[in-house]
């Protein structure tokens, strides 16, 4: 059965059963995946998945039932299960569906350029792999060379007359390889989103990744101790991704963030401005409404070091007595989501930051970030890769590192902010950042 027809039948069946408040969240995605290995196409697969979540509000609570199979015979079961789930819950605060008539912003999401449509994708990957091997004889193995593309569509319809939908289209190619010299193996990766012309050039991409990897060869060790730190822009963006939950109202209520009572207080160094901007032109996570159908808006979370707002869904906004910020997940889910989440640019170039730092450690990669961080205490200890900063310039590569500290202090310890804002594919962005001395150990 077609999705729209199914949604209509489910909608009517819910009304016929006299259910007052209900909502249907539907999403559909298509995904093509290509992989190349040793000059051959190793994998070509196509995935088409759909997901429907039906929610009912009973009293204060919203209960949901999720399914991937849209069969008419399942409709009574879907309604029954959602209702039972709603009745089982005993939350102290009220949950909501969104139904106000509101204007939705016009947005332009990041999408592949027109020329991508005629790209020979298999050839692109084969050329990418081959070039990587020929550029430098220290290239040991192209471990992964792949391309994914897809479309995503989602819609929300509810009994309060909300009926919104949105779609996106994306493409992504990546390469991951190892290089070897004097028995030391190092790895590097690179990706493109095909959103600019140079992304269609596999040679250029191969050059970048090989250059990145060989720079890491012949690493030296440094004694453990405190060092001034400069984070590469993309690396700090990854770090932001890990600690973004500090700013969600749900983390505050779950005691996973200490920012709950810090509104209008100084939580970060001067000059730090942190934004969640779903309306960003050409952003990877740009959209017109959030998971609850609430119209999106730009949220300045920290302005010049001062905490301005937490990120809310409909439920937490009501509970905290504020207006929603458009960060809901939807379908009765209680969490908060993020869009294009980034630190705003400062004035300094990367070179100026290195010059002013003079001596320290330049961090390019963080590892083990899923485990080395407690949002409850704010303490973190990550594996890292990086280079020595000597005489204001990037010097020799360093052996495996750990970097440790506390994120609440880290926000206060930002000293210099670059002007080279860059986003990761996950939608987090940062310029190059310099931080006061932090504890480093080196293998």
């Amino acid at each position, binding site marked *: 059965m077609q999705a729209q027809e199914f949604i209509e039948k489910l909608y009517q069946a819910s009304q016929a059963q006299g259910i007052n408040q209900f909502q249907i969240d539907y999403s559909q995605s298509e995904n093509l995946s290509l992989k190349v*290995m040793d000059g051959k196409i190793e*994998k070509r*697969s196509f*995935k088409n*998945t759909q997901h429907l979540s039906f929610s009912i509000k009973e009293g204060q609570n919203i209960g949901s039932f999720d399914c991937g199979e849209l069969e008419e015979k399942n409709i009574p079961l879907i309604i029954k299960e959602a209702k039972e789930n709603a009745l089982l819950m005993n939350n102290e605060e009220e949950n909501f569906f969104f139904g106000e008539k509101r204007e939705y912003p016009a947005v332009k999401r990041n999408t592949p350029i027109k020329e991508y449509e005629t790209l020979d994708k298999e050839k692109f990957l084969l050329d990418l792999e081959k070039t990587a091997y020929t550029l430098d004889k220290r290239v*040991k*193995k192209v*471990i992964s060379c792949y391309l994914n593309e897809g479309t995503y569509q989602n819609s929300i319809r509810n009994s309060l007359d909300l009926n919104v939908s949105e779609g996106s289209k994306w493409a992504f190619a990546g390469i991951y390889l*190892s290089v070897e010299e004097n028995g030391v*193996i*190092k*790895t590097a990766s690179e990706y493109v989103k095909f959103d600019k012309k140079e992304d269609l050039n596999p040679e250029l991409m191969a050059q970048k990744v090989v250059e990145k990897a060989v720079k890491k060869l012949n690493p030296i060790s440094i004694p*453990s*101790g405190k060092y001034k730190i400069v984070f590469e822009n993309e690396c700090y963006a990854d770090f932001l991704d890990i600690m973004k939950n500090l700013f969600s109202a749900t983390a505050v209520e*779950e*005691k996973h963030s*200490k920012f709950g009572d810090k509104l209008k207080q100084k939580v970060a160094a001067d000059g730090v401005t942190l934004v969640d901007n779903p309306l960003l032109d050409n952003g990877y996570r740009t959209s017109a409404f959030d998971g609850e159908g609430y119209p999106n808006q730009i949220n300045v979370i920290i302005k010049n070091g001062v905490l301005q707002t937490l990120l809310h869904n409909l439920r937490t906004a009501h509970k905290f007595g504020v207006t929603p910020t458009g960060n809901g997940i939807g379908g009765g889910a209680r969490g908060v989501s993020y869009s294009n989440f980034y630190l705003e640019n400062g004035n300094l170039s990367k070179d100026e930051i290195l010059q002013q730092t003079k001596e320290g450690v330049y961090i390019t990669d963080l*590892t*083990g970030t*899923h*485990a*080395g961080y*407690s949002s*409850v*205490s704010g*303490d*973190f*200890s*990550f*594996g890292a890769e990086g280079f020595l900063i000597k005489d204001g310039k990037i010097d020799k590569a360093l052996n*495996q*590192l*750990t*970097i*440790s*500290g*506390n994120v609440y202090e880290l926000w206060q310890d930002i000293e210099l902010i670059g002007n080279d804002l860059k986003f990761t594919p996950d939608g987090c962005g940062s310029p190059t950042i310099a931080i006061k001395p932090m*504890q*480093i*150990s*080196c*293998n």
Partner: protein
Amino acid sequence: MLKISEYALNASPLVCKADSNYQETTRHTLLANSLGVWAEDTIARSRFHLASIAQEDNITEVAGDNFGGLYGLELFDGRNLQEFAENVAADSVSKLSAELCPSGKMDVVIGNGFGGVIFHEACGHGLEAEGVAKDASVFAEKLGQQIASPLVTAYDDATIDHAWGSIKVDDEGIKTQRKLLIENGILKNYMVDRLNGRRMGVEPNGCSRRQNYTFAPTSRMSNTFIANGKSTHDEIIANTEKGIYAIKMGGGSVKMSTGEFNFSVDRAYLIENGKITKQVKGAKLIGSGQEVLQNIDMVGNNMSLACGMCGASSGKIPTTVGQPTIRVKNITVGGQK
């Protein structure tokens, strides 16, 4: 579940939040292929997790523990849930007064059970045919060679009754088995799926797994553990002059192609003159898997298993890690001090 949360909240006035989480799944699979395989299976799996948050002045700490297996609600039968909850609560409270962990190279004693995650990451992934066949693993072409200290014998065994990572048939329809991976330090077997087995010219051995039908299956671990040695836990501590006792590991990751790993330690103590002294926090272990395996110089006799979720190219799957208490010489420890 409400009762268990209450046990933790009542254990100390410093515990301000206790979250109980129970998950139960039933997985039905049917696999048919042109090789003549027709395999059907149904597996029930359940897991309980408790997190306790303790707060004093401006310091907040969290501790958690879990148990799970191939059960339904009978998972809870015969367990002392009050003791379990009180232990988790006590962990969160004792962390409040932990000092910052020192940095540098030192001997590390790793606790049994979830301590096995270090073997899972630093060695287990490197023995999956997915990486071996592509020459992307540091353990490729090392069969028959001494890759670990002679004290190390390790298995991947999907056939353990009720263990969290057990399966009867793999996701390519092959009956699962107990595989000896390392015997007295010598590499004996890889974990092999059909596709990579063909690349390597060896038979698959029943360890092809995936999250669900939307993923292509590949070689993965099930219940992977270091077998018992001869030392007792107390002997290991008493024989360590200076080091860290990592009683409970957090998670970590490893680069299969270089063997470089990093692990967080969730609960750690200093060992001074053969005695466990102060609790420390924020410890991170880094190094290379190959080195750690060779540097294991004591293996205990108290092997136990612990549940985990493992993510890789064929999705997230339940796996078990395990080991007795072990000691590793000279690991780089990264702390905040």
